[in-house]
């Protein structure tokens, strides 16, 4: 399969008053055409920053980000606008990402206007987009505050779809939604994928949602990928101790299964990215850490079944 997105050793750093935050340190990841890759991890692991880096919304400190064959690092403003036709993003808080003083129609039309579409064609396209995401045609004259959270997320999706992107980066798109509405939006994303062949990088802390939607999964911890592989592979036989701990911590919506499972609750919390541990980033919480883990940072390497893990002991 053709590669739509290739990340090689990507680094993102932020200079803050308290020091340098290494939000993403050395991430490599591929995404094929038509694939959904889930990016999971807890708050502060760098998953959203990585998503923004692919849009070039944060400064890239090192590495290569190749979108559809083009390295985005050296692109100028005009070239970047062209690149962003191929990659769009939807966000967790659809209200915060829509202009409250702009009608829904204008918000959805914005990318088309920037791309130089004529008014007639734009109006027609907006109506088509609203239909695709299941909103009534009169929605275009209304304002974001008139819509519920789920409807606003549909508006965000319509805007992301406007220029027929090849890749949509979904940053926690359903985390703020209620259960029944969350299912509606997940189903919509899957329908759009089938219909238009769009690929997703699906960023989420919710493992059950990622298991449902992703073909492949990458697990992040403190700015690095600690394990990556096919969805079934990861869920059936997780290799990295952090992946195991994450899966064990996720609640199961089945009381008998929940009671039956033996689980060890991971102790401690995510260390600060300002002062990450030396060696393996996970060693301070790892149940199987040895002295070596405090010094040597393990590299991602094949662990069978097409999966990769960064641990000295798997």
């Amino acid at each position: 399969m053709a590669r739509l997105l290739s990340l090689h050793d990507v680094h993102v750093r932020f200079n803050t008053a308290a020091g340098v935050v290494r939000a993403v340190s050395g991430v490599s990841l591929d995404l094929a055409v038509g694939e959904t890759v889930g990016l999971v991890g807890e708050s502060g692991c760098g998953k959203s920053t990585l998503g923004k880096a692919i849009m070039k919304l944060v400064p890239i400190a090192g590495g290569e980000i190749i979108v559809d064959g083009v390295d985005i690092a050296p692109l100028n403003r005009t070239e970047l606008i062209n690149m962003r036709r191929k990659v769009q993003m939807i966000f967790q808080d659809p209200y915060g990402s829509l202009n409250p003083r702009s009608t829904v129609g204008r918000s959805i039309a914005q990318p088309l206007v920037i791309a130089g579409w004529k008014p007639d064609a734009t109006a027609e396209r907006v109506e088509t987009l609203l239909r695709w995401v299941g909103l009534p045609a009169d929605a275009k004259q209304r304002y974001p505050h008139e819509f519920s959270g789920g409807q606003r997320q549909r508006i965000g999706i319509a805007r992301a779809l406007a220029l027929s992107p090849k890749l949509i980066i979904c940053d926690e798109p359903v985390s703020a939604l209620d259960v029944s509405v969350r299912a509606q939006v997940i189903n919509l994303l899957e329908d759009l994928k089938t219909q238009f062949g769009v690929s997703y990088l699906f960023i989420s802390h919710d493992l059950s949602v990622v298991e449902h939607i992703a073909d492949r999964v990458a697990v992040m911890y403190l700015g690095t990928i600690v394990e990556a592989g096919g969805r079934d592979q990861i869920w059936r036989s997780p290799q990295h101790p952090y992946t195991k701990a994450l899966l064990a911590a996720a609640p199961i919506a089945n009381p008998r299964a929940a009671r039956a499972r033996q689980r060890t609750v991971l102790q401690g919390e995510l260390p600060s990215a300002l002062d990450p541990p030396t060696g393996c980033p996970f060693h301070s919480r790892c149940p199987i850490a040895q002295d070596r883990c405090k010094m040597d940072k393990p590299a991602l390497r094949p662990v069978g079944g097409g999966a990769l893990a960064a641990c000295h002991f798997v």
Partner: protein
Amino acid sequence: MALPLEVRGLSTTLFTRRGEMKAVDGLSLSVGAGETVALVGESGCGKSLSALSIMRLLPDPPARLVGGEVKLNGRDIVTLTEEAMLDIRGQEIGMIFQDPMSSLNPVATVEKQIVEVLRTHTDLGRAAARERARELLELVGMPDAGRRLDAYPHQLSGGMCQRVMIAMAIACSPSVLIADEPTTALDVTVQAQVLALLKKLQTDAGMAMIFITHDLGVVAETADRVVVMYAGRKVEEASVDDLFDAPLHPYTAGLIGATPTPGAARAARLADIPGMVPPLNALPAGCAFAPRCPRVMERCRRERPELSRPTPGRLVACFAAEKDFAPKDGA
């Protein structure tokens, strides 16, 4: 002996410029010692307002308790004065909230906040209260408890703030604890830590707990019994096993179907519930769930189903579910 908490026909109405809204409409529930009852439903179904009504923490206006009783260890607290309630809150009934950062006082140290609870409700002197505060922090698994006493909330992580909230809530060993989405804002590994902590504290002290959540995974992990709410009313109640094995109300079935189950074979689609929770000032006539219900019948749009007991140990407010259990003609 009286149950720790018995609520009968609790009704809270919001009096607003846009009219009266029945936010909680005739809610009954009871919680035994050592039992966890989960209160489940989507935003706006009245879960949190029910909890705040029980605690008598709702601002009047606009909210007013218009009916029902809340018996705490056998005593009705609905008619008590605010002064009497101040004694009871924190002493007999404690509450923890979703957002621990904004529930703690940002300009007071952890010690000061826990000591305040202890000094209000007990005879402990300053030094003894400080010592007890440290013990409580250790009990809730605060790393480096002694040093955290002098910390301010902004110096702690979300998980640690929630531990402080829990320490404050259990400081006086209340017989009832209400936890309102206590882990929703936390990461999954920290959520597991907090759930395990609550379970342990509850088992050790035999507390009755109401656990409010929208997350069915968390329900399955923590609850003994489940009360499902929709548009301010209880629509189903069952033991956690019965509820997940065979939900009777179509709304419960919809919630379970809409939740992806880890480890299950990937279904092509999640079962979604069309539409959304209706606003309280525009409830449909008849059953509030009828416009979204896959099993809706003519009768549901005219008449509101009351709770019935179709089979022992279960309650459901649904005509379709009643019909399933009705004796067949000629049988």
